[in-house]
């Protein structure tokens, strides 16, 4: 076990899976010669050649559709969408085709496809480059949606996604790429659809995923010093949603804060709060608190951008409100 970055976890997994299974191939813009906009695919073109590491034109609808068609014939494409903001031009292919083909045609073909893309906002990328749309995909039956928070989960879930026979939307985060964590050498997978209690606690449950899990763990550590015991449930998968793990935690702590960096209304936290009140109603000592993004197109100006996204402080405030 050695600590590696989230980026290295992804990069090495892609390399390993390309080596393991000749049906695996990568597609995306600038993933080859350019080495990947965020260097997730660095070195892979050299190792595997242009047939397996396919640089595409800027034509997301076309190449995502092509990846689906290739998957229907038995290939296992792993597509990179540079950031989730650009997925909107390809979303028709994902939602109207990838998610439906297995079911709608009576199970005749599978669509073993992974779409990797970073979501969320950091670094003043402004309104069109700071969005989160994982709730949209999580809404769609037929898709699976995962969003790892650590290098360990990134590797384990990417392996699971590539080996899964359904279309998987794999949500990354620019802010996590350089974070480090221990990753074992052996060939493990993290199962899709299973959340993890990343830290046990007794006073309040915080439910989070991706970058917000990292913040929640930070907050838990900080509050521990004040004697507040926070349990952190890391969803890891958004679809399917591991309701039993969430509910078990809330039944224990009797309080819940749910956090996501997407917009407040109709975002991920809405489903989390709804689910908790539904299945743990009699256990709740206070309303589930939602912490999420302010409802504005993310402004470029630094201070506005900072306040628009949920922070450790906003999470702490929410926890305090119900303790």
């Amino acid at each position, binding site marked *: 076990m050695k600590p590696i970055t989230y980026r290295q976890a992804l990069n090495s997994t892609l390399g390993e899976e390309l080596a393991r299974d000749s049906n695996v191939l990568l597609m995306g813009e600038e993933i080859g010669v350019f080495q990947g906009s965020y260097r997730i695919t660095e070195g892979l073109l050299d190792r595997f050649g242009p047939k397996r590491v*396919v640089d595409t034109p800027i034509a997301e609808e076309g190449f995502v*559709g092509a990846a689906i*068609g290739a998957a*229907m014939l*038995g290939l296992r494409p792993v597509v990179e969408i540079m950031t989730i903001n650009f997925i909107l031009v390809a979303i028709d292919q994902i939602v109207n085709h990838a998610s439906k083909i297995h079911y709608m045609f009576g199970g*005749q073909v*599978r669509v073993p496809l992974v779409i990797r893309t970073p979501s969320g906002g950091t670094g003043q990328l402004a309104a069109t480059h700071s969005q989160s749309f994982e709730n949209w995909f999580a809404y769609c039956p037929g898709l699976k949606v995962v969003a790892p928070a650590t290098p360990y989960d990134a590797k384990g879930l990417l392996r699971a996604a590539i080996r899964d026979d359904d279309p998987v939307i794999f949500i990354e985060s620019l802010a996590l790429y350089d974070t480090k964590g221990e990753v074992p050498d052996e060939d493990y997978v993290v199962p899709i659809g299973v959340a993890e209690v990343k830290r046990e606690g007794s006073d309040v449950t915080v439910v989070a995923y991706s970058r917000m899990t990292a913040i929640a763990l930070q907050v838990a550590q900080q509050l521990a010093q004040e004697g507040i015991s926070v349990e952190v449930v890391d969803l890891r998968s958004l679809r*399917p*949603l591991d309701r039993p793990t969430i509910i078990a935690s809330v039944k224990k702590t009797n309080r819940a804060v749910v956090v996501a960096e997407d917009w407040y209304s109709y975002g991920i936290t809405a489903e989390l709060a709804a689910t908790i009140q539904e299945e743990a109603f009699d256990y709740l000592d206070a309303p589930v608190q939602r912490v999420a993004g302010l409802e504005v197109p993310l402004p470029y100006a630094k201070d506005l951008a900072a306040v628009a996204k949920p922070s450790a402080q906003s999470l702490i405030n929410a926890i305090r409100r119900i303790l």
Partner: protein
Amino acid sequence: MDKPTTLTKEATAELRHYYYQMLLMRRFEERTHEMYVKAKIGGYCHLNLGEEATIVGLMAALKPEDYIFTNYREHGYILARGVAPGPLMAELFGRETGVSGGRGGSMHLFDVAKGFMGGYAIVGGQIPLAVGAAYALRYQGKPGVVVAQMGDASTNIGAFYESLNLAKLWRCPVIFFIANNGYGMGSTIEDSSSEPDLWKKGASFRVHGEQVDGTDVLAVRDAVRRLRERAETEGEPVILDVVSFRFRGHSVIDADRYRDADEVRKGRETQDPLRHYSAWLQAHELADEAWLKAMVEQVEQEMQAAVDFANAGPHPKIEDIYTYMYASPVPNIPAPETARRLLD
């Protein structure tokens, strides 16, 4: 259509078979219309009436190793590809015995064994899929080509152009097959395409294009054969603009009021692929009145058998609603509340 010289028995049988297929399609669609009126069929339902030669010609030229992706007006394609009318009608009836298990309906037919990779109902959406399938063929070093069928009006959507570029760049063996019936719902080609010669729409991508008379089954077959060969051996994608006349409204519920009744009558008369081809067969002494009549009877029986088969098929069971949901099982599906609904 050129006059055939001395023909082998097989060649004669094949030429007659085209007629049989076209007639089967004609009658299938007419019965489908009846069944829709009887509320045996629901949803949107688009018929291939007038496109029989377009489709039979295409399928005559394709090989078993080829794949086909179409739009939602695809009954005839899957039929001509060799799927029996029974399971096809059963799909329209929404039965478990249908080609898509009753899940897809008229717009979403599928038969993986025949390389018929689906009818798709988002205009243009099937085109990138076909390019990817062709990429997969090349990747796997397999023979074959992929047909991306679409309607004339669908050539205005971005996915088509992105696909032309990808297919050419990646040297994918794709035939962009435009089933040009002159209309997209109520719009003419001139209404919606600044380049109304649709076969020229590859010009921005260095993709070769041709036009062919879609009411002439042999002309379509020969064009597809030639272009298929080139696509397969040279990885050259191609556009084939196959022109026919739409006999009825856009779908069975469209009263077709925007078209001039005279125009429609004339179109049906002068551009009827069956009429043309039966005349041709007779002129070349490949068929006579008796044979034609026998065909009608045979097809009639097959149609009745198809309807009976469809009627006899079981409806999918409510408790099977989540079957086919995921190919790789995962925990925590379905959500508990939605699971409860089935028991309510």
